[in-house]
């Protein structure tokens, strides 16, 4: 039923965010854990005030806000219910910024992949020393927490140290623990960070908010003195105390399992200091948990809701066609969405029988008719991917450079003859049922996926069967485990990672992630090639603007392609319907200031930009 698909859609979104944390940590050559698991908090369970979160605000306490001044969104949780209700502390296990809370958190910098790039916010600038071992950040003057306490370099330093000390329990802590040797406040407006060696990507990866990545800054005067165990179980939501505090122009006023109300806060520092001329036009943000696609689309079609979680390729067209006020990233035309940073592939377990053979991997790739997937499963709303990273503008030069290699190793080719050729080359023959087998061992190819793959999954399975692989598509609840412990031979998954240069994604395949079957690993290809590792090691400390970087990239890629570490299938699309009945200036292709996922950390950029269309 729906919830599974949805769960996984959300999981995948979370994954994309969380993954980058780990990924970016890896980029800095670190191997510390990236995200505390959700069951986290070895903290004493005693403190868990029960009913507090359940009680909705008394009707009198909440002011009425007109519909045309409210932004109503459906996102997050499980169908019909939030699971993070009352967790105002972004580092509490189970908390998420995605359900509107991003409106509260302001970072040192925003980074808009679709807009102007780096946007200084609570900081005014940063500077690395020459060998990328020291980082100096200048903090903006006049920033205040919502209780009036000034936000200073000390809060930043406190947060960094808290993460350093709280690894691996605190989410997003490992990257900082691995990269940062010490952080000090030179004065109220200057942060000095000493790195554990050259870390050219730390500033971008951890201290800039983009997509779902970047650390959350917390107020020292609230968090000081708490142990990591206490932090993961610290709920930090109390409208009486104005908890959680924020630097952004919003505060949470009511929160129950089916609704979250976030109201505008008129004493925002940025207006006082003149950093921003005026408050955002949106007076209230209302978030309801996601529901079945049919329910959500019905509500946006009825103008009850302004935007919702992204839709399937197959439902977005139906949604747009039923209400002329609904637009998408590409207006009201195909493909109705924008490219996510999460291209998906058929992944292989390089230690598993059959799939350790590169001929079998290539045969599987030749067996997949990617165009048919887009045409049938996605009704045309999709894009084929040839490499495991998105075709974002900063990455296009790398795509361009890879063209000759892709001609030699065509990852998008559908060719049953080549399937047979590759399979026979490795000594496989078709058995009585028409399935490939060697020495009496048939190539069993059941593959799993998050249920967001339910549209293409069954069709990929049939394509593989047609080519002689006994395939079956499943969505087990323990998909994550099966990927990480190697019980799968192959599976569908995406790559969150590279945004600006290809290192991060390519680093997924290095031997440091190798673990024998049965032992968990995060990047679970179980690909182990010292030659490849050596190139990646060199890339890690090479800034991407050096010419040598491109050569390293190409030699790594050639190894990757020859071995076909995984088989790229499609670019992922975010197909978000946006209703223009009450609000204009949504982020679109024509008005591209940020990517349109309102659940990302860049949500404030949308809030400051959007204008009412009525009243």
């Amino acid at each position: 039923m729906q919830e599974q698909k949805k769960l996984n859609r959300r999981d995948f979104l979370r994954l994309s965010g969380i993954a980058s944390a780990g990924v970016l940590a890896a980029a800095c050559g670190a191997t510390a854990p990236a995200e505390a698991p959700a069951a986290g908090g070895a903290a004493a369970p005693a403190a868990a005030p029960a009913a507090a979160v359940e009680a909705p605000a008394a009707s009198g306490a909440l002011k009425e806000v007109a519909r045309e001044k409210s932004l109503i969104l459906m996102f997050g949780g499980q169908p019909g219910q939030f699971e993070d209700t009352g967790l105002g502390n972004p580092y509490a296990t189970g908390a998420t910024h995605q359900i509107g809370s991003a409106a509260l958190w302001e970072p040192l910098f925003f980074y808009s992949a679709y807009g102007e790039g780096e946007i200084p916010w609570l900081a005014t600038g940063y500077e690395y020393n020459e060998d990328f071992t020291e980082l100096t950040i200048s903090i903006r003057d006049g920033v205040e927490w919502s209780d009036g306490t000034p936000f200073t370099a000390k809060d930043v330093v406190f947060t960094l140290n808290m993460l350093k000390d709280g690894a691996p329990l605190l989410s997003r802590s490992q990257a900082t623990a691995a990269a940062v040797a010490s952080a000090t406040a030179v004065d109220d407006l200057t942060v000095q960070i000493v790195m554990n060696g050259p870390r050219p990507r730390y500033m971008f990866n951890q201290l800039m908010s983009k997509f779902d990545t970047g650390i959350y800054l917390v107020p020292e005067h609230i968090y000081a003195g708490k142990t990591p165990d206490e932090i993961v179980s610290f709920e930090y939501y109390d409208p009486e105390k104005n908890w959680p505090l924020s630097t952004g122009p919003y505060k949470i006023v009511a929160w129950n399992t089916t609704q979250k109300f976030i109201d505008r806060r008129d004493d925002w520092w940025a207006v006082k200091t003149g950093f921003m001329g005026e408050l955002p036009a949106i007076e209230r943000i209302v978030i309801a948990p996601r529901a079945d696609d049919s329910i959500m689309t019905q509500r946006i079609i009825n103008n009850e809701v302004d935007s919702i979680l992204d839709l399937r390729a197959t439902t977005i067209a139906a949604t747009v066609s039923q209400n002329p006020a609904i637009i998408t990233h590409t207006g009201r035309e195909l493909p109705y969405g924008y490219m996510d940073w999460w291209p998906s592939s058929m992944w292989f377990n390089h230690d598993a029988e059959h799939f350790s053979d590169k001929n079998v991997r290539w045969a599987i790739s030749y067996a997949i008719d990617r165009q048919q997937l887009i045409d049938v499963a996605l009704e045309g709303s999709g894009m084929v991917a040839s490499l495991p990273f998105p075709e974002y503008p900063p990455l296009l030069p790398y795509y361009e450079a890879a063209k000759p290699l892709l001609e030699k190793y065509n990852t998008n080719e559908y060719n049953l003859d080549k399937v047979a050729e590759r399979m026979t080359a490795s000594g496989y023959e078709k058995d009585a049922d028409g399935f490939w087998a060697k020495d009496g061992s048939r190539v069993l190819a059941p593959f799993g996926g998050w249920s967001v793959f339910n549209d293409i999954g069954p069709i990929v399975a049939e394509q593989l069967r047609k080519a002689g692989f006994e395939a079956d598509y499943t969505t087990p609840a323990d998909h994550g485990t099966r990927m990480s412990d190697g019980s799968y031979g192959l599976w569908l998954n995406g790559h969150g990672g590279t945004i600006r240069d290809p290192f991060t994604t390519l680093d997924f395949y290095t031997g440091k992630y190798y673990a024998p079957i049965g032992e968990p690993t995060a990047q679970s290809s179980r690909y182990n090639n010292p030659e490849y590792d050596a190139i990646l090691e060199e890339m890690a400390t090479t800034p991407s603007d050096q010419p040598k970087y491109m050569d390293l990239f190409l030699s790594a890629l050639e190894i990757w392609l020859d071995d076909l570490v995984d088989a790229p299938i499609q670019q992922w699309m975010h197909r978000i319907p946006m209703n223009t009945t009450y609000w204009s200036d949504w982020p679109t292709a024509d008005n591209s200031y940020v990517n349109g996922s309102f659940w990302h950390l860049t949500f404030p950029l949308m809030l400051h930009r959007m204008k009412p269309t009525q009243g």
Partner: protein
Amino acid sequence: MRYSKQYLLRRVGLLLLIIWSAATFNFIIPRITPRNPLREKLLQEASRSGYIPIGFDEMVAAYETKFGLDLPIWRQYINYLGDMARLDLGFSIASYPKTVWQVILEGLPWTIGLLAVTTIIAFALGTLLGALMAWQNSGPFVRYVMPSILIFGAIPAYVIALSLVYFFAFRLKILPTGGGYGISTIPALSIPFILEILKHSILPALALVLARTGGWALGMRGMMVTVEGEDYMTFAEAKGVKDWRLFYKYGVRNALLPQVTGLALALSFVVSGAVLVELVMGYPGLGTKLAQAVTQLDYFVIQGIVFVIILTLAIAMLVIDLLYPLLDPRISYEGG
């Protein structure tokens, strides 16, 4: 006093036995599979985060210690029984630091509201229908046309719900497609809010009533037929008792007892909810919670919900058993 001491002791003993065995069952099921739910969940979360820390196994061990999973199995079992006896269901894995009770209490009011109301409506409707169907003096419409309504009782409620959603929400667009109440509505004890909740519950309620009326009608019909065969009915008829009076005073009243005890039983099932209907309708009840827990492998929540349901059922059955002799003077639990 209609109950002997031995009977009460035996009955309460049985209650404890049932609760104990259900709890034990609950304890064993996750443990007979080769997968450790905690490790599973940690792995899943960790691998989603894109990164399995080097010290992962140490972390799992730390959590196992915390949850007592490193103890020998019998110690775990004793601790577990102790927790259950204190009604301590522990923590949710997926929404830590929430407790399982918090999770359950979030969904429970919705489920109870929906299920209790529909159960009672279905009961009243079905009983009336069944009585009329069995009554020989009912018109042909009642006796031959009404039974076709029973057909709905044969179809799973969620399939009915699906069809209703299609017609009333998608085609006619007169009712909401699902959810508990409007998104931007502020929950309050006000008439409009209550109306909104009612409006949102029409379709799931209708589906449940349609699906469940048939069963009651059948039961009632059977009882009425039996009652009509009794001598006192013939006698009353011969005495010239008026038809409607015969129907109501002699027929329905006597046939009602098993129905009422059935109702008590059905009401005790209210807690277990209607998982599939809730899912199809996006209704924020306990069934939805359970389904979520299943997809998230949140064993502690699954176990908690199952345990609460068993507890409610077992206690309800005890209460029904004890009420029986009060309702029916022919039954007594005195003596051996």
